[in-house]
């Protein structure tokens, strides 16, 4: 047993913190605030990470990575999430779009997308959820009808983060002629500027860019834009969701915010109610447990044995920790916490930002109920 990242990991973490402190404003709250300047900051930052080889550190060198270990990628992920994800939407490319293309893509698809992703020049959105296919994702009804040697895609996607800025959509659609819910689902890699795609932003408590509707009206898809075998997309979706669930290291942000508030409260702990101190104590432990469960998934991936059930256990722990820490921090500061970014709220509005996002954490990437179902299926066997 050894829980150290080693000298290489420690150095990487230290370098990243230095880079973040140097390139990001102290009140930075991520790419997707009401200030478009924040988005521009992340795009510059992302390219700099890419130039240093840090964006896709664990990818093989042939695909534009450094061939680093998944543990080094974990260090990057933790530092990015802890500091309000200055990779913006690009974290998805690193975490699951690229790996899915590496595993299931053609030579041409790899050549087209992987170098661009590694360079921080390609943004993706995920076209999975639909108005009538949320948790029941395999009920999706977006159609892909054969047209010559290609396809015509029609349907509606929803909750599609980053769709207004994305270059490509990782799109799930159903091909005709299949009886089973899972068979027939096919994945397409579609440029978002293609004719027939319309994106409509949805106003939400999360701020701009997070939630959109996407309409696909007879959108052309060429044969070389199909990822993996036709009709075999469900397997790829499950794999990508498992990667995605581990790739969001919200526990690292909980950890950082707890430590920042801890320092800010120095000397005033005695004025906090005993019940709140107890809650704080438990929050510290929840963060540690969530992190260790996430590490268990990384270890499984490193062994070449990624597991849906392990990813779901980690996801439940991380999202519950996220919400508990958000509420605990709000309780510490009371109504002052309500102030948003660039106000005089505690930590420049970081607590308010964290609380709003935490509300989504048990819904995004598969609801907590879906995670529980996956865990139960693994524990109880098929019913």
């Amino acid at each position, binding site marked *: *047993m050894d829980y150290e990242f080693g000298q290489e990991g420690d150095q990487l973490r230290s370098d990243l913190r230095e880079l973040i402190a140097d390139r990001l404003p102290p009140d930075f709250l991520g790419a997707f605030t009401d200030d478009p300047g924040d988005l521009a900051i992340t795009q510059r930052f992302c390219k700099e990470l890419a130039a240093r080889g840090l964006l896709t550190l664990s990818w093989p060198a042939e695909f534009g990575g450094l061939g680093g270990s998944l543990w080094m990628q974990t260090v990057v992920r933790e530092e990015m999430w802890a500091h309000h994800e200055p990779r913006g939407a690009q974290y998805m490319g690193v975490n699951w779009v690229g790996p899915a293309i590496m595993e299931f893509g053609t030579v041409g698809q790899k050549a087209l997308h992987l170098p661009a992703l590694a360079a921080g020049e390609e943004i993706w959105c995920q076209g999975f959820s639909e108005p009538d296919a949320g948790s029941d994702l395999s009920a999706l009804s977006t159609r892909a009808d054969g047209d010559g040697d290609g396809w015509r895609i029609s349907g509606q996607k929803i909750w599609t983060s980053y769709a207004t800025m994305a270059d490509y959509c990782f799109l799930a659609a159903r091909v005709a002629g299949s009886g089973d819910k899972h068979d027939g689902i096919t994945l397409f890699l579609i440029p978002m500027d293609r004719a027939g795609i319309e994106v409509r932003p949805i106003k939400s408590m999360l701020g701009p860019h997070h939630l959109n509707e996407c309409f696909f009206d007879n959108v052309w898809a060429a044969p070389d834009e199909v990822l993996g075998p036709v009709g075999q997309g469900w397997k790829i979706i499950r794999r990508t969701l498992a990667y995605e669930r581990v790739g969001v290291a919200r526990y690292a942000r909980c*950890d950082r915010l707890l430590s920042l508030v801890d320092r800010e409260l120095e000397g005033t702990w005695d004025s906090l109610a005993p019940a709140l101190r107890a809650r704080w104590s438990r929050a510290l432990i929840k963060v540690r447990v969530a992190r260790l469960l996430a590490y268990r998934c990384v270890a499984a991936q490193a062994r070449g044995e990624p597991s849906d059930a392990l990813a779901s256990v980690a996801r*439940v722990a991380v999202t519950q920790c996220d919400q508990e820490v958000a509420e605990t921090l709000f309780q510490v500061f009371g109504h002052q916490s309500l102030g948003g970014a660039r106000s005089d709220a505690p930590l420049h509005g970081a607590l308010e930002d964290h609380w709003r996002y935490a509300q989504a954490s048990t819904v995004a990437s598969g609801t907590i109920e879906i995670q529980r179902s996956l865990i139960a299926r693994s524990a109880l066997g098929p019913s």
Partner: protein
Amino acid sequence: MDLALPPVADEFAVAAERAVVAMGGMELARRAEADPTIRTTEVQAMLEKLGVPDIDPRADVDSAAVAGELCRIAGRHVLPFPVVGSVMARPGEGVPAVLASAPPLRAEHGDLFDQWLVHDLSGDVGEATPWGQRMGDRLAPFTTDLVRQGPSRPSDLVDVQYLYVLWASYLLGVVERALELAIGHVKDRVQFGRPLATLQSVQFQVADATVAVDGLRELVRFTLWRVASDPGHALADALAARLQSLEAAQSVLRLAQQLHGAAGLCDEYDISILVRHVQPALRLPLDSDATSDLFFEATRIHGFESLFSSRSDHDGRAR
């Protein structure tokens, strides 16, 4: 980064589980209530055969992991012997150790040894001997009062930390077994024409318990490593493991017993034995709320290492 248990600990756990099951598993706990002498004639003898007296968790990380697995297996069967205290005996001395709060000092199976080392929560350690009979109650069949003998001296913080985390490992075994029992029951038990396991409300409870058990397992292993790799400087870590183990045990045991229905209250079912016999381990030396207070104080004094604690923030080291 290597999260796997050392092979020696894995191998020991397999051997220990096999040995306990061969002797009846949780049946030993049932029999010991009727005939307490089997605790020495059968259980202690079996532990000696396994080489338990030679295990010293303080020796190195591997030994700490072996001790952790021993305690976990003991917890799985609420083995009727003071396993945690015994494995913390100083090599060659054979005097078991116990954590205790204010009098009356109490130890599980305190009657089995003439002498104990009592670490109290104020930081002192001293000898004690059994006082009176085993309580013999349903929720404390083997708990015995102790009385201090002679002067105290400052406690060894390393031993205190191991006692906390090894008890957490014991409770890990308890909740692992409770979950297994619950899963077995809901898969077998048919109501409304189908197994309980097919009901979503049951599935969600099993999922929540799985998260609790898996989380505790990772935390206990991490904490054993922390205590072993930085001896004497992991009090907050050890208390965190203790607190988490208490809270996981409360929730998982309640849920596992509930899923058994009325059967879960009957000693014929292992879950009833597990729930009854583990109660002292959930209350001694302190219950979860009091442990939470201790943990909070420890974090104020010693800090609590994390990705962003003071030390890691300066040198980039994360624990």
